[in-house]
């Protein structure tokens, strides 16, 4: 997941249409279109749903259903920095649950939440494919292995600093 560019373009109907247009020749393009929207705007704005539906000859309900099914498609602007902590078994075996608790306590938020200023979002993820160097996290798209509490602190400090 790309780190949110502070200058992410604001929603524009024409831009949405242009992003759809270049994908119309693909088979079953809906997920691809939503990825493109998420990459461009940081999330899938609900105003895009009817535009996408019309262009792909789908119902709005179908498009909404797909947007809400997949974790990658946010429905609102993402936090400036997203820290995704792996909670799958290999990371559990190396103390991932303690790290999750530590991060939550430090930020005063739960998994799936973000700080009140929307600077840091904390999310759980099940497996990043780094299972021999557990515990792992994906911080704004960057994979980090052999995570420790100290490392988590440094990551959160950096994220808070950068966002300022």
């Amino acid at each position, binding site marked *: *997941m790309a780190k949110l560019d502070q200058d992410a373009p604001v929603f524009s109907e024409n831009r949405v249409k242009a992003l759809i247009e270049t994908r119309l020749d*693909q*088979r*079953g*393009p*809906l*997920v*691809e279109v*939503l*990825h493109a929207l998420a990459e461009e705007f940081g999330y899938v704005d609900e105003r895009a749903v009817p535009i996408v539906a019309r262009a*792909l000859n789908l119902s709005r309900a*179908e498009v909404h*259903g*797909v947007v809400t*099914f*997949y*974790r*990658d*498609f946010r429905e609102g602007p993402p936090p400036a920095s997203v820290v995704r902590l792996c909670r*799958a*078994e*290999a*990371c*559990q*075996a*190396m103390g991932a649950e303690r790290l999750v608790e530590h991060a939550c306590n430090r930020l005063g938020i739960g998994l799936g939440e973000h700080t009140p200023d929307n600077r840091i979002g904390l999310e759980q*993820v*099940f*497996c*990043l*494919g*780094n*299972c*021999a*160097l*557990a515990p*792992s996290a*994906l911080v704004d*798209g960057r*994979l*980090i*292995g*052999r995570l420790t509490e100290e490392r988590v602190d440094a990551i959160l400090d950096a994220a808070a600093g950068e966002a300022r």
Partner: protein
Amino acid sequence: MTPVTVYVPRDASARSVGADEVADVLARLAGERGIELTIVRNGSRGMFWLEPLVEVDTPAGRIAYGPVSPGDVGGLVEAGLAGGAPHRLRLGPTEEIPWLARQTRLTFARVGVTDPLSPDDYEAHGGLLGLRRALAMEPRAIVETVTDSGLRGRGGAGFPAGVKWSTVLAAPTTDVKFVCANADEGDSGTFADRMLMEGDPFLVIEGMTIAALAVGATEGYLYVRSEYPDAIATMRTAIEIAYLQGWLGPSVLGSGRAFDLTLRVGAGAYICGEETAMLESLEGRRGVIRAKPPLPAHAGLFGRPTAVNNVLTLAAVPWIVTEGAAAYQQLGVGRSRGTQVFQLAGNVARGGIVEVAFGVTLGELVNDFGGGTRSGRPVRAAQVGGPLGAYVPTSSFDLPMDYEAFAAAQAMVGHGGVVVFDDTVDMARQARFAMEFCAEESCGKCTPCRVGAVRGVEVIDRIIAGQDAEANLELLEDLCELMVDGSLCAMGGLTPMPVRSVLTHFIDDFHLPQGQRA
């Protein structure tokens, strides 16, 4: 003087512990000292406890150093890294490291050896031999070769690949057939698909192309999970290069036979690793599984005959076609033929990729290759085959890695992922997590999985809390039976496996009152 070639992996795991920084410092220091270096960002050799692993080409072969931190680089260069000089991090010739030397790397032969995005390197190390041979064969003959090799699906289910391909080949279609590679590697403890896509992407392309030739498909889709940004980037570039090389497109290697390959990215749904959910996702829909029949081989992607295979299954094929079915079939035990790319993960001292023939025991993998736990504490259990696989106690570590032997022990080999736990693990909590994970990731289509998993968490919570433990254990067993029998796919159908393995082998962790289910 020709520049010395130094290898620093580009693999995501190696990067997760500083490989990029090592490469940067190396390039800078070499520049400052006027040492001519060519830095190749190779795949990982799969010895992750030694990452970042730096190798240097010498007249005596490649010499390895590791694990190298950015701070070590200065000393290494000073000591004479470019000449393979002694240093406390020097591991000797890479190929002679016993951990590696003991393996039989067929699928992973090039991973860590070559520059992943160099087509010349690929061909120089045996790439395209399988494809060239396949182009000279009748489709039926390719399918027979794969059938005779005994290759079974490496994604976990272990279905004979040749039988699947034969069905797709025979299936009538009015227009198009598809090949889909499943790289939605969502199971914890697995990273072989990722490593292969990052370390030898052309092999994935070659395997898919041979599959297409075998079943009569002209279009292929590679479905990669979005949690693998590096693999996505490398595969995208590799596909572009393959088109430029004429390995893909309207006339594969000038044969006049067409194969077009498209990469699609998942969107954060574990269930899309289930083949029919993956097909739905590829069609642009919610990743909800389909009831079978019809089989994807008859009516798969967009209702057309489709061969859906795991990345590792497809990647095994070029070797099989090149070396012959008999050579592959000679390896392994029982009905588990060839090699499996085992993955050692979790609390393990020497984690990584162990590609060996089937038949190696779980204990050999965990103790001999893995070196026991990373924490140094005794091993308590290993979960084999992902989140839906059983927790195997050390008393069963003499089990051979063999589909049938594991099934007989109420466990599964699956994709060969092995997650090691030490004696601090609370197995009751692991059983609970199995249900929690299913509740989180269920697609919601069938009730046993959607509701059963939620009820499973609740009933396990009651057992852990000591509420009417005996009756709740009975209820849990009943629920497990229902999920196994009534679920539409493996998500709900196999979630009871880890739960039941805990009840069978680690019941003590529930701290039941005296006399109950002792």
